[in-house]
């Protein structure tokens, strides 16, 4: 069976009618116990399993997913990868992630199609230009690439945007991060799954965790739709369902679950080179390799576990798009959907112990955790293997809500996934 993807194997399999490719990962029966059980087969859970094996030599590991791999937010997101954050703590976290993404296709032997086409966040007034300059300076001080653009430069890079003088919010300039871009969401989940499986990790789909098993106050395993599974340590990476999971052992979290929506248009000839976010319209857009516009916006401001789109936000995001690029007014949508995202008060993630011994949390990524999958997995694997924080994950401990040491990116860098 051919396993590795290489030019030679592609040619060889091409000549053999592609009959030699095996399955990318196994479908094992759950074992009665593992050293580490990870709940949630999204990007974060699968990346964690991969780095547990790769960085810590832990292979007796299971990932339990109630549905199919990447069927949560990982397979529903608009795939923007960037590290244009404000605070040093966030810059360290998200830039670690971008760096890992830069080598990921090679590391996993799986093409995650990370395309560093750049991202522009526009500014629409003189005060916003001041804030943009502050953002650029903060990013550079944190060692992250950033450039300040004036209106002419934005126009040269993205001529499809509207520069009409009578615009409600005329473009004055923007912030460009050249290393930002997009990736292929499914490939990130599948690439990590395949590499983790090859390292010996059991990936078990259609296996929902119904309860956490506590013994003498310690979490020692999980009850699932496929029976009881014991664990040395349990890690939860269940995004929008984090409150439900933590609630099983009486832990309350500073998380609200909201629907976040996205849209894809019919395929068009190339109109857009980069990812563009126009904050006053609450809309951002990129163009996929197939030509479809991938469009996103802000959260529904109504707590929800209803994983589907709805009209009010559709109206807001698409009216924003038609203001940004009036030339797209007649473009038709192909699909519209939502994912349930886990939002914290400071829009920063939660990584660390849950308060119950033996149970660790990787959650709170909210609207922006796709870009963080490699770093989230890397740091969560460290936590599960060592029992203590990596320096980069320490500021994101749950205890920050007691000490007041919030990493308030919601206020500092606003929405943008």
């Amino acid at each position, binding site marked *: 069976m051919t396993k590795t993807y290489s030019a030679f194997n592609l040619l060889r399999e091409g000549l053999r009618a592609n009959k030699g490719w095996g399955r990318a990962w196994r479908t094992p029966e759950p074992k009665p116990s593992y050293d580490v059980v990870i709940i949630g087969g999204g990007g974060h859970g699968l990346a964690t399993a991969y780095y547990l094996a790769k960085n810590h030599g832990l292979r007796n590991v299971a990932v339990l997913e109630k549905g199919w791999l990447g069927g949560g937010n990982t397979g529903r997101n608009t795939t923007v990868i960037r590290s244009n954050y404000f605070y040093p703590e966030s810059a360290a976290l998200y830039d670690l992630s971008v760096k890992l993404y830069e080598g990921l296709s090679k590391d996993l032997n799986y093409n995650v199609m990370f395309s560093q086409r750049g991202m522009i966040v526009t500014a629409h007034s003189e005060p916003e230009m001041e804030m943009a300059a502050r953002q650029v300076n903060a990013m550079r001080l944190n060692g992250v690439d950033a450039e300040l653009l004036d209106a002419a430069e934005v126009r040269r890079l993205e001529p499809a945007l509207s520069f009409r003088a009578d615009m409600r919010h005329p473009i004055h300039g923007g912030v460009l991060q050249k290393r930002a871009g997009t990736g292929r969401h499914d490939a990130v989940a599948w690439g990590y799954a395949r590499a983790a499986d090859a390292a010996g990790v059991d990936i078990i789909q259609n296996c929902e965790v119904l309860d956490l098993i506590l013994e003498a106050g310690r979490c020692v395993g999980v009850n699932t739709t496929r029976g009881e599974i014991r664990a040395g340590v349990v890690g939860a990476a269940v995004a929008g369902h984090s*409150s*439900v999971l933590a609630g099983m052992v009486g832990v309350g979290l*500073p998380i*609200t*679950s909201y629907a976040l929506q996205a849209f894809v248009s019919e395929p068009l000839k190339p109109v857009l080179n980069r990812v563009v976010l126009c904050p006053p319209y609450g809309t951002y857009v990129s163009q996929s390799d197939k030509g479809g516009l991938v469009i996103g916006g802000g959260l529904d401001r109504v*707590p*929800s576990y209803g994983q589907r789109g709805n009209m009010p936000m559709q109206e807001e995001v698409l009216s924003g798009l038609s203001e940004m690029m009036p030339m797209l007014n007649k473009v038709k949508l192909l699909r519209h959907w939502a994912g349930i995202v886990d939002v914290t*008060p400071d829009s920063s993630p939660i990584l660390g112990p849950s308060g119950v011994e033996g149970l660790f949390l990787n959650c709170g990524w909210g609207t922006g955790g796709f870009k963080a999958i490699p770093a989230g997995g890397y740091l969560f694997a460290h936590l599960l293997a060592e029992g203590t924080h990596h320096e980069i994950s320490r500021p994101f401990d749950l205890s920050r*809500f007691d000490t007041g040491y919030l990493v308030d990116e919601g206020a500092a860098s606003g929405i943008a996934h």
Partner: protein
Amino acid sequence: MQIFPCPFCGPRDEREFHFAGELGKTRPDTRDGVSDADWARYLHEQRNEKGHVREVWMHMPCSELFVLERDSVSMAVIGSSPLRGAAE
């Protein structure tokens, strides 16, 4: 658009309504001091329930706060009542 019931104005378009918070959160008594953990819990912790929820909403045209009971998965409205009396 979905129709929500305002207890004062009747059935109205969902875009006229604003979610204010979960029902039943009471501010800790700070006269004798309150621990950081209790204060943090009051400020930040959410029940964030999946299923039947009871919440405080505002109907913006009449500016009245009221209790909306709904299903957080299906979004079906279960009931709506004035806030006065609900806290008891």
